[in-house]
């Protein structure tokens, strides 16, 4: 079956959770590997061919020189590059350090700061062209499947842009905002089935802001519930800070 999609799954700096989420489609895993010609997936196989791909799923953010090299190399070999998960999409929690004072890290380094081979923590689209983004920390397993199916059927992938609250209400959860929790569901893209709120935990915004998110109003709303501005900004920046569109929030 030479007409099968040639696929690569790679990771740069990250936690491997997004690559695991591909594998956590337990019932579909073997079918997936039959439908796709998985040429490279170094996390699960020692036989990796890097000649050319139709599709590469890339987990992780850029935080080391090696990340940039691998990313550029893979980009040059694939027709479609997907940012898989929040690290690739926004830099996620590792990029949150940009909001903390560098001086606070100095005493924590083993070696002198200037000796560290460190790269500004950045999402992958700061370095290469990205064709699609599947957000989430980690992305939903079914969403990865759904993306691959859409591609194989030759259809256009349309990311979910409605807020987390749509599924949350449908699932019959009590509104955590009403219960006094700093839930970011109303300004965050859903597509996760509100999994965290289903589990009793407020949304931290890992899938990125909705198109019409009004951060200013939302900050005021949370301040009205007694949260400090500093705390609210910390929460909003934790997962997706680098991609918040309102400039006064990203200073």
């Amino acid at each position, binding site marked *: 079956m030479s007409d099968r999609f040639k696929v690569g799954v790679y990771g740069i700096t990250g936690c491997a959770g997004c690559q695991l989420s591909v594998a956590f489609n337990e019932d579909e895993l073997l079918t997936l590997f039959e439908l796709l010609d998985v040429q490279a997936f170094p996390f*699960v196989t020692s036989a*990796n061919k890097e000649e050319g791909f139709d599709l590469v799923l890339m987990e992780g953010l850029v935080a080391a020189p090696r*990340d940039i090299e691998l990313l550029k190399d893979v980009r040059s070999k694939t027709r479609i590059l997907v940012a898989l998960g929040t690290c690739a999409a926004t830099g996620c929690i590792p990029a949150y350090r940009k909001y903390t004072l560098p001086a606070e890290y100095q005493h924590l380094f083993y070696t002198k700061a200037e000796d560290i081979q460190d790269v500004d923590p950045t999402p992958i689209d700061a370095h290469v062209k990205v064709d699609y983004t599947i957000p989430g920390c980690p992305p939903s397993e079914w969403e990865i499947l759904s993306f691959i199916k859409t591609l194989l059927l030759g259809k256009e992938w349309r990311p979910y842009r409605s807020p987390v609250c749509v599924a949350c209400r449908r699932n019959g959860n009590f509104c955590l905002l009403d219960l006094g929790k700093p839930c970011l569901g109303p300004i965050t893209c859903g597509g996760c089935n509100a999994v965290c709120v289903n589990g009793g935990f407020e949304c931290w915004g890992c899938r990125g802001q909705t198109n019409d998110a009004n951060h200013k109003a939302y900050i005021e709303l949370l301040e009205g519930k007694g949260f400090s501005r500093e705390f609210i900004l910390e929460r909003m920046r934790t997962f997706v800070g680098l991609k918040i569109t309102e400039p006064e929030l990203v200073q």
Partner: protein
Amino acid sequence: MSHDYVHAEELTKVEGHATLTVRFTNGRVEHCELRAVEGSRYFEGILLHRHYVEASEITSRICGICSVAHVLASIQAAENALGVQPSEQTAALRVLLTLGEHIRSHAAHLYFFALPDYVGFPSAIAMAADYRTEVGQAIALLKLGNDIVRTIGGRDMHVVSATVGGFLKVPTAEQLDGLRARLEQLKPAAVATAELFNSLPYPEFHHQAEHFSLHDDHKYALLSGRIRSAGHEFAKEDYHRFLSEYQTPDNTANFVVREGHTYMVGSLPRVLNNGDQLSPDAKRFLKAGPLAKGSDNPLHNNVAQAIELVDALDHAVRIMEELRPKPEPVPNIAVREGRGVGAFEAPRGTLWHEYVLDGTGHITRANVITPTAQNLRAMEDDIRLMLPTLEGQSREEMVAALERLIRAYDPCFSCSAHFLRVTWL
């Protein structure tokens, strides 16, 4: 004089990214370096000024493959600092969550990472046609472990329901009954796994590393007890007196030694230290296989993982027979200044979280020591010991033998790459 190099650019079938470089001359190892090549993620720095209740959500992102371990070690460190004693129900649910993670992690590691080396395939997927039963068992066990974590933690990765003091949401008794039926149904798959891994042809190799694990007088220790080896025992709060961290230039991972010496954490140390507390069926495989008289072969870590897999299924069933969860409000916690340590048996070994909190509950110091950071030195020492025994083999065969050795430790290079040192006052 003949110089020879072995360089594995990117180790495959391990968690995270690492390279191995070895130079040896006339059979003598002159240089050996196992390097994590991940970018630094500065988690301990990111935790500064955050409230203790936020720490588990942040630190779970250290690792996707042992996220439960980071969540629970983080919660435990905060509770230790605040003097919080979780309820019996909370303690039982935490053990179940842990067992779910051990089941999925061991099943995945044994079948997807370790077994292909022994049967001559590059991956479990490539094995699937010839080893359909085994791969099917692996996936069924992986799914069962994931479903236990999903049911109790709210998500299969970066679980959300566990928090400092208790659970935000508890599973129903019916959900636990459903999981228990599946545990009983899959017991034969776990038993077959232990039989298989008791019978594989492990390379002859010996390394006298000190085996450390938690030990609890009352049960097979996963998240309670003291730290113990054959010759030493100490309380988790005292770990600074025993363990020291250091870093080599140009490497983002921490190395950890105990009083300057190599030691090992993981399944093999746990099973050898606490074997008499395993379930009767798990003990049967301990007594009938390569571990019967103890072992100083790190490759036997795979045997120990398979034994723990049997024990994990039995242990989870025992808990589910008794446990009828009821919603419990998370107690109000009196915030105070303090220092707390969490010590937790992740699938790949003892994981440490330590936080210092100020009077408002915000973190002023954080330290995380991962299992792989502790095993890095042991892995390097093993490579030095093993290389001379591989003389005469081709470069590919040598790399394959060394990779198999490293994989046996079930390393997690993402975890180990957190790159921070804390100066304790």
